[in-house]
């Protein structure tokens, strides 16, 4: 049985044989310049396909400019097993750091989201498939610590093929370690919002990522414990094209919402408002609670347009 694997699969038809340029839409073949795609939050303007987003770019998308302060930056994997497969683990780590500029597959810190403070933990699939090892576990816990210490919500954005096999049992233990951190938040009444990006699988979805007080996914994200290939190879069952996809998960009761990336920051602002302390309202009025002035939302108009009234209709479906 191998439910945890690093090299996650793409849906059928997503992957052509041979190489495809990362800025070519796998769904409609539109091609974009990188700055174009970045400006569009890496969402295909033609068909709405959501391209992968690196950790730092994701932070730019949701955190107010200039407010992000990273924590745990200097932590690095230490390879206690002196693990060698076809290549040494240390070589793979070096390559990943050079390719991504990151010290591991998760970036932790604090910042403001549309004016409200939050602790942040964002994963990067480009760093060894977003695999969870000791550094990721510790960094996630540091973000949770910051949330706990300051009494501010924790927001995580995950993208992971699962546990990092090169750390074997220590990688597995990060599931217990991160769940313990979520347990502390729950005990203290500190909100935790989990955002699942494509793909969130294996040990990450079977631990902290599933335990958000609110769990939101990006459209079409693959969210499953075992990937479709493992399921098919192990059990001989066929998987449907929508197996494990965000929309299936919503229907199957695992998610609160599937939110297009362009609306994500607005939804986070709404949630941070809802999780903020009660305020006295002036004489029976039911107007929206004021938000910081000048707050804007990426890809949308001013905040109050989004937060003005009940938006249940939009999120249903």
């Amino acid at each position, binding site marked *: *049985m*191998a*439910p*945890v694997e690093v*090299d996650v699969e793409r849906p059928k038809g997503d992957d052509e044989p041979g190489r495809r340029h990362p800025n070519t839409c796998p769904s409609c073949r539109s091609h974009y310049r990188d700055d174009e795609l970045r400006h569009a939050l890496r969402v295909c303007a033609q068909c709405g396909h959501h391209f992968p987003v690196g950790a730092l770019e994701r932070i730019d998308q949701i955190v107010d400019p200039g407010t992000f302060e990273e924590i745990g*930056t*200097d*932590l690095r*994997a*230490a*390879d*206690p*097993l*002196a693990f060698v*497969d*076809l290549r040494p683990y*240390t070589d793979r780590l070096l390559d990943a750091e050079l390719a991504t500029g990151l010290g591991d597959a998760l970036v932790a810190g604090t910042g403001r989201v549309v004016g409200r403070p939050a602790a942040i933990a964002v994963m990067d699939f480009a760093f060894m498939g977003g695999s969870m*090892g*000791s*550094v990721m*576990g510790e960094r996630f*816990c540091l973000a949770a610590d910051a949330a706990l210490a300051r009494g501010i919500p924790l927001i995580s954005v995950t993208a992971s093929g699962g*546990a990092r*096999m090169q*750390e*074997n*049992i*220590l*990688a*597995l*233990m*990060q*599931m*217990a*370690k991160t*769940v*313990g*951190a*979520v*347990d*502390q938040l729950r005990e203290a009444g500190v909100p935790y919002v989990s955002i699942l990006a494509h793909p969130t*699988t294996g*040990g990450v*979805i*079977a*631990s902290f*990522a*599933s*335990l958000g007080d609110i769990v939101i996914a990006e459209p079409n994200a693959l*969210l*499953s*414990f*075992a990937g479709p290939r493992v399921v098919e190879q192990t*059990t001989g*069952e066929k*998987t449907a094209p929508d*197996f*494990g996809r965000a929309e*299936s998960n919503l229907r*199957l009761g695992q998610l609160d919402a599937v939110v297009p990336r362009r609306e994500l920051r607005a939804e986070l602002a709404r949630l941070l408002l809802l999780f903020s302390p009660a305020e006295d309202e002036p004489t029976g009025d039911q107007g929206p609670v004021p938000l910081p002035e000048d707050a804007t939302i990426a890809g949308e108009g001013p905040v109050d347009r989004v937060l003005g009234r009940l938006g249940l209709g939009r999120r249903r479906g």
Partner: protein
Amino acid sequence: MVRVSDEVRRLRKRFEARAEESHVWESVQLARHADRPYTLDYAERLFSDAFELRGDRAFSDDEALIAMLARYHGQTVVAIGHQKGRDLAERTRRMFGMPHPEGYRKAIRAVELAERFGYPVLTFVDTPGAYPGVNAEERGQAGMIARSILAFCQASVPVVCSVIGEGGSGGALAIAVGDRVLMQENAIYSVISPEGCAAILWKDAGQARKAAYAFRPTAGACLDLGVVDAIVGEPKGGAHEDVDQAARLLDQAIRQALAEAESVSAAERRAARRAKFRRMGVWGVADEDGADTL
């Protein structure tokens, strides 16, 4: 580039030395031996009485994971364990000890029951992993494993876990978060099966033995890495050679571990359990000067 502690250097040296080469694969084989005692074999020998707790009160009764109220040395405990099944019919019924979400929901229910009455929880871990099927996924396998881990984190009663065969991935960990985690001498515990690891990293499941040597699913490695608290001896040749003796050794170890877990207050126990898992992991510190590198 990465500065590591003396402890990490010591670990690396130990694993680079590739000691116990033969023992690694022997453990994999013994842990999966067809005659290896399972949860019920130990339950029969450790408990003077028992009542099976069945069902998740939601969807089904998952026989891959069993739970019971049991009398252990004069006190009532809640026991939870994977159960593989001895003959083909039982194995099929029990899905070879691979639980669906319903199994973990039953485990959560059993932990909550223990919590209501202050009964200690004993778990017996022996699974290739959670069942990786379409239905299991559709009913929320990942989320339920996470919630089971959370239930074990939240429990304020004493929790003693014993890895008695295959400790396979998240499917094992879901019931293996305890104040004390014991591991039998020939049990294995790993994030993925050797075959799965080989298939992914070596692109060849046939390289399982090579993978096992590389990632060390053995009790000795788990102890060195601080993942388990004690190794429980087995009769010569493995637990199946003398099940009564294996049960006596396990009983002794559980009894001592339970006494330790019971020696502190509920709040201390819960905090200590969380702190113990919080410490798990090994990392270094990026060092621009290049001193003390790996």
